């Protein structure tokens, strides 16, 4: 750590970041991003990847830092939204909110909803701050290891990351491998990344630019979630009798949050489905070291704080593989990777040195975004609780409309909504077969990069 502090680029970098974020517009955008993220996290049937795709066109018009900070705000805001629905209604918006549900929902049923929400908010704040600070210290180390990754290393790393995703994502290894393969195939049509020739367009000029990422995201997650929710019968809420809830011990909950943060940070650095792994691992850890393991599953505060902290820490830490290696860890990060390319930021180990304003600015934004998250979460707790109770029949027409208009804007033409609907149907079909669409989207985004690096490797050795 001494080495990190001795590095002069760290200080000048942080200063540059501070200078870069001194703008009111930037803060308003981050605030808007966090707020929107919390909203889509709370609302049923419309997930953060779809929201991300919808706001994607903003990337073209905003400053790089503003655009990426806003989209990141959406990302971690949505994590909080997932916690709200898990605690209040027992519906995890995303897989990584499941561990929160184990303890949070019994607490809400036991009449401690408000306290549970506040604990979850504080815990995820702790995790977020911890991981952002970790990123600051990590940057000099990583950027020194920077140039080690050449084309061959990157290609190998990406292949490895895809395999890791296959091993860890829900639905089993075989299904995930199929999804990855499908994602890679979907990335083929359009212009070849190295040679620029167009291929597999089957004579459709709409395909000449390949499959549109916005349409894919909105179809797979927007329309897909929507149809899945409409087609599946409404779940019976298990209205357990209010159980006796253990009292809140603030110190032990805080310690649990710290343990969760460390665990989440380390898991987040590994490029695979980080959030889920981190939150479940933290829950298991807390149960293991607790003096009252029998309380777990019935509203143990440590079991709520730990996973909540670790899942937010993992979310923050997953920015490291994205920014420093160009490796997205989930579909939202994949969308962010696309956004980075457009705004002229080259993700890679050299990023902190080559674009210090952007890198450090983004980290400062992540730190401050967590403060905003805390404020919004505590200040508007009642609002989120009400929002979570909106009936789905009022929402789905809006969501459908949003997906279609969003994909139209994204593709700048009718090919967007058409692709979006096709992918929506495909998504429902895949979910019926027990496949998760996340590996598909990751493989789709990594496909052209993997191909480029693979080709570069082949051209330099054979």
């Amino acid at each position: 750590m001494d080495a990190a502090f001795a590095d002069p680029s760290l200080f000048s970098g942080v200063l540059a970041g501070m200078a870069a974020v001194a703008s009111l517009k930037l803060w308003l955008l981050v605030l808007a991003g966090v707020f929107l993220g919390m909203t889509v996290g709370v609302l049923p049937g419309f997930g953060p990847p779809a929201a991300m795709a919808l706001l994607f066109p903003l990337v073209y018009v905003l400053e790089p830092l503003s655009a990426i900070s806003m989209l990141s705000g959406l990302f971690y805001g949505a994590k909080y939204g997932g916690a709200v629905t898990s605690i209040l209604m027992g519906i995890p918006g995303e897989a990584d909110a499941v561990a929160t549900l184990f303890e949070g929902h019994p607490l809400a049923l036991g009449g401690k909803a408000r306290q549970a929400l506040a604990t979850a908010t504080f815990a995820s704040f702790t995790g977020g701050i911890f991981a952002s600070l970790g990123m600051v210290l990590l940057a000099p180390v990583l950027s020194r290891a920077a140039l080690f990754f050449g084309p061959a290393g990157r290609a190998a790393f990406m292949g490895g990351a895809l395999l890791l995703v296959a091993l860890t994502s829900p639905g089993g290894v075989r299904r995930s491998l199929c999804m990855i393969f499908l994602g890679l195939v979907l990335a083929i049509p359009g212009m070849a990344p190295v040679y620029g020739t167009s291929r597999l367009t089957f004579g459709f000029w709409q395909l000449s630019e390949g499959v549109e990422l916005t349409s894919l995201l909105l179809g797979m997650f927007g329309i897909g979630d929507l149809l899945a929710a409409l087609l599946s019968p409404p779940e019976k809420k298990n209205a357990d009798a209010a159980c006796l809830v253990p009292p809140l011990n603030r110190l032990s909950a805080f310690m649990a949050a710290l343990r969760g943060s460390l665990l989440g940070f380390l898991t987040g650095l590994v490029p695979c489905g980080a959030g889920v792994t981190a939150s479940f691992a933290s829950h298991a850890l807390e149960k293991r070291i607790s003096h009252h393991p029998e309380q777990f599953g019935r509203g143990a505060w440590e079991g709520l704080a730990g996973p909540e902290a670790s899942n937010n820490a993992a979310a923050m830490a997953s920015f490291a593989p994205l920014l420093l290696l160009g490796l997205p860890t989930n579909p939202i990060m994949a969308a962010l990777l696309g956004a980075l390319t457009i705004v002229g930021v080259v993700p890679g180990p050299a990023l902190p040195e080559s674009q210090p304003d952007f890198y450090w600015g983004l980290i400062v934004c992540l730190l401050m975004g967590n403060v905003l998250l805390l404020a919004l979460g505590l200040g508007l707790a009642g609002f989120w609780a009400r929002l979570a109770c909106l009936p789905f029949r009022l929402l789905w027409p809006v969501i459908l409309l949003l997906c279609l208009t969003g994909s139209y804007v994204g593709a700048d033409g009718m090919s967007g909504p058409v692709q979006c609907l096709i992918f929506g149907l495909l998504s429902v079909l895949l979910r019926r077969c027990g496949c998760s669409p996340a590996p598909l989207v990751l493989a789709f985004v990594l496909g052209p990069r993997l191909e480029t690096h693979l080709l570069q490797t082949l051209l330099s050795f054979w």
Partner: protein
Amino acid sequence: MKWRTPHFFFAAVWLALLSLPVVPGAFASGSNVQLSIAFSPGGALDAVARTLAREAEKELGAKVIVQNVPGGGGMTGVARLAQSKPDGSRLTACVTNALIFIPFRNNAPYDPLKDVEPLLVFGQASPVLVTRPDAPWKDMDAFLAATREKGGDMRIGVPGLGTPSHIALAVMAANDPSLKWRFVPFGGPGEAEAALLGGHLDAAASGALPRIKNGQLLPLMVLAGTNLPALPNVPSLTDKGFSDPGRGDSSFILLAPAKTPEKTLEKISRAFEKAAESEAYRKTLEGFSVAPVLKNRQEAREFLSQAWQEEGNILKAAGIADMPAASPKKGTAGAILPKEE
């Protein structure tokens, strides 16, 4: 425990949600111009085109939104432009190799003289072959000797196949059978430099003068017929007895889709011309091995059709136009793309 929710609250959420897709639309609408740069960030074209865009914004009174569309040595950017709406809202900055070299080699999905309209030539690149300062070869002669010794195992990073630096080196190799290199294509010179510094390449084509001057990169040769005033001690192609491949393919050019209304073209090209004459733009050029060549719309069009002729002759004479290389064969699906009306 049911929360009572008033109707206006539903209405508010509805409206808020409905406004979501309008937000980016509202930002993006108006007279904004989208400028695509045909290489990845970090190279000469990227840097100077971004400055040009910032300066042109002042003249146009509209936002110029810059994005990078790397791929195919510049071909992807031009192909996208040729398919986009001809209303003056889309422009592409590329190097002329995408217009007068690549179409000779690959089946480009556009006609370089008919589908795009040149607006401005705003510089001429003279790429420099660079290596790491700790490399065993300190000048071009040593590098060539090492090349001959290793028999084709030396790796050179180029910012895309068919870019001026690749062509210059390929012509050298075509004229001298003892020279053989592996060309590794990147999305732009910045990526190639990073790979060079990491030891994954033996040399790379670059144009970043500051990095050469502060000793991060060691210059071997200017890949053009004449020396650079900024690097007087670095030999050029002619100094080393290689033929000058003709520099028609290394000019930076601004393009609009063909059939764009004349009035719009006139307005945009005048704004960018002014921008290219600005002080800030000239300052940016000094950081790269780019000559301050300026050609207005009329001159750019004449230059393009003339260079097309010349390049064809040169390439056929050198046998490059049909040279088998890492590039895919002709007859790929590119030709079947219909042109958007």
